[in-house]
């Protein structure tokens, strides 16, 4: 084993260690505090957890590639809402009236296309204007939300299609539809980031943009494609979720960006770009969902949940830092 391999393994394993800690804690605390007769670590409950992780998880996987690329996307929540509106509303459009249930795939594609375009618009602005992605997407977070409201005023947009609901609630090999989507997306983006030229270039650009430019990598298109990917995934998340719930409030998806970024960073992705992994992000998503679910399980009230989630974030960060200290020889900067 090469020196440093162990510490690297520990480092990338931090989030999994944390998940195990959470499981142990909530199982034990649940024995005393919960009124449920069912144990926290029930198999069914864990499958449910995977399913419930899907809405945030699918977006977080996309955020990983954007952040590795050295950017960030704060507008995903609004993109998610727009895609949901397109999905639900387009099913009622007269031009699709003759399609019957075939309207479903059409609406899906339409929603996904809209999400992709919204993402690509962010990417294009970042590319062409050179304005920092944080600012571009902070603006888009407002602007896209404005579009959501423009669409239907303050009213929710609803269309309950039971065929669709049944599909979304279906299970295949014991896993819910949403879980499948989460897993497939995770594997696909993992493949993209570790195996393809595009993925490796994304790392290079995030790590040292000037070096990437000097090496002749077309930085702009990479940025745009990655934003298009996260737009697509935000829309996919909406498609998966709203197929089941059938109605979208104009506020939906608010604060998703913060949860998503938290999951990505907990999963070990460097905020400044250049390093990070999809598998780590997956761990981060599970850790957050566990935390929310677990706190509900032991009956914490709203103020406690807020307090605890906030502090836990910080504690995880401290632990992560401790694991990464190279020892006393380290340069003190």
């Amino acid at each position: 084993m090469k020196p440093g391999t162990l510490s690297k393994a520990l480092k990338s394993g931090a989030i999994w260690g944390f998940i195990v800690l959470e499981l142990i804690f909530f199982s034990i605390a649940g024995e005393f505090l919960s009124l449920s007769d069912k144990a926290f670590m029930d198999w069914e409950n864990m499958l449910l957890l995977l399913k419930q992780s899907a809405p945030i998880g699918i977006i977080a996987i996309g955020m990983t590639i954007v952040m590795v690329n050295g950017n960030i996307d704060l507008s995903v929540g609004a993109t998610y809402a727009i895609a949901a509106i397109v999905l639900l509303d387009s099913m009622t459009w007269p031009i699709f009236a003759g399609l019957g249930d075939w309207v479903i795939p059409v609406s899906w594609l339409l929603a996904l296309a809209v999400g992709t375009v919204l993402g690509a618009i962010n990417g294009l602005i970042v590319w062409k204007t050179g304005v920092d992605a944080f600012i571009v997407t902070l603006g888009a977070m407002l602007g896209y939300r404005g579009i959501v409201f423009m669409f239907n005023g303050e009213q929710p947009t609803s269309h309950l299609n039971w065929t669709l609901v049944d599909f979304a609630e279906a299970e295949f090999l014991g896993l819910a539809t949403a879980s499948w989507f989460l897993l497939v997306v995770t594997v696909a983006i993992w493949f993209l980031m570790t195996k393809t030229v595009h993925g490796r270039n994304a790392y290079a650009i995030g790590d040292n943009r000037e070096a990437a430019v000097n090496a002749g990598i077309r930085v702009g298109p990479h940025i745009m494609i990655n934003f298009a990917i996260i737009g697509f995934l935000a829309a996919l998340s909406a498609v998966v979720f709203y197929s089941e719930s059938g109605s979208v409030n104009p506020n939906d998806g608010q604060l998703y960006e913060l949860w998503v970024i938290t999951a990505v960073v907990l999963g070990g992705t460097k905020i400044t770009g250049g390093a990070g992994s999809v598998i780590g992000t997956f761990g981060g998503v599970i850790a957050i969902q566990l935390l929310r679910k677990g706190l509900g399980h032991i009956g914490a009230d709203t103020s406690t949940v807020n307090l605890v989630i906030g502090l836990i974030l910080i504690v995880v960060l401290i632990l992560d830092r401790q694991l990464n200290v190279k020892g006393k020889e380290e340069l003190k900067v």
Partner: protein
Amino acid sequence: DGHSVMKIGITQNNVGVDSYQTTYEKAFIAAAEGNDKIESVVLDAGGDVARQIAQMEDLIQQEVDAIIIWPTNGEAVIPAVRKAHQAGIPVIVTNSNIAEAGFDFVKSFSGPDNITQGARSAEIMCDKFKDVGIENEAQVVHITGQPGYTTAIERAKGFEDRLPEVCPNVTIVDTQPGDWNREKSQQVMEAFLVKYDDIDGVYAGDDNMGVGALNAAKAAGRDGIVFVGATNFAVGYEAMAAGEYWGSIYQSPVDDAEAALKTAMDVLSGKDVPFLNYFDTPKITQDNMGDYTKPVF
């Protein structure tokens, strides 16, 4: 069915965003703890539909006896409610109702009637205009709650539908959201005051925003404006007592919470409960405020 203790789970909309919801949560917990036949699981969706649906699933998985839901979105939760229904768990909707498509899957709704509330606010305002004789010329501005919230939407609808029926010559000159937020509402009102030289009435989606608007008018030295709100808060009550604020709708979160819990207990013990279980939310104005105690929130 042989239960000595009833396990009741509740998933609320967004506790902590305003004191109504927070007081509701406290009252609910207090009521549940005061009754040794009840064990409660209290969850908060934080305004997020996805989280609320996950909480419904959790409650089903934990096999509670009944679920109370304060929907974040009256339509989006229907499939989740159906799941509970299919699992044999009775569902009670509280505070704001779900859409009709889901009525088959719920046992009962308990809460205020927000459309009626909006309509009543319109009546309060119209009556006051008639009192001072400006019912044919009055100009009203409307400050709504957080965009997208069912309560905000329903109250706005009730008000805007009813006002032309009772005072056909009054015009609503402008509408902007105040996000259930006093400061935001104050800012909105400041701009209104600059923009319109003549404002006779302000309708705000709740008293918090109403008082924000009142503060703006006071600071600008504009009096003679009729302020009407909804969900009578302590600040609104005090402003009424001071003669600055005309009227509101009396709605107690404690009543709301207790009504929901009681409905759930009744359902579980097999009693007949009406499907729409509105609790009364009467008009309160400077004239009759003596009949009501000051709200606790």
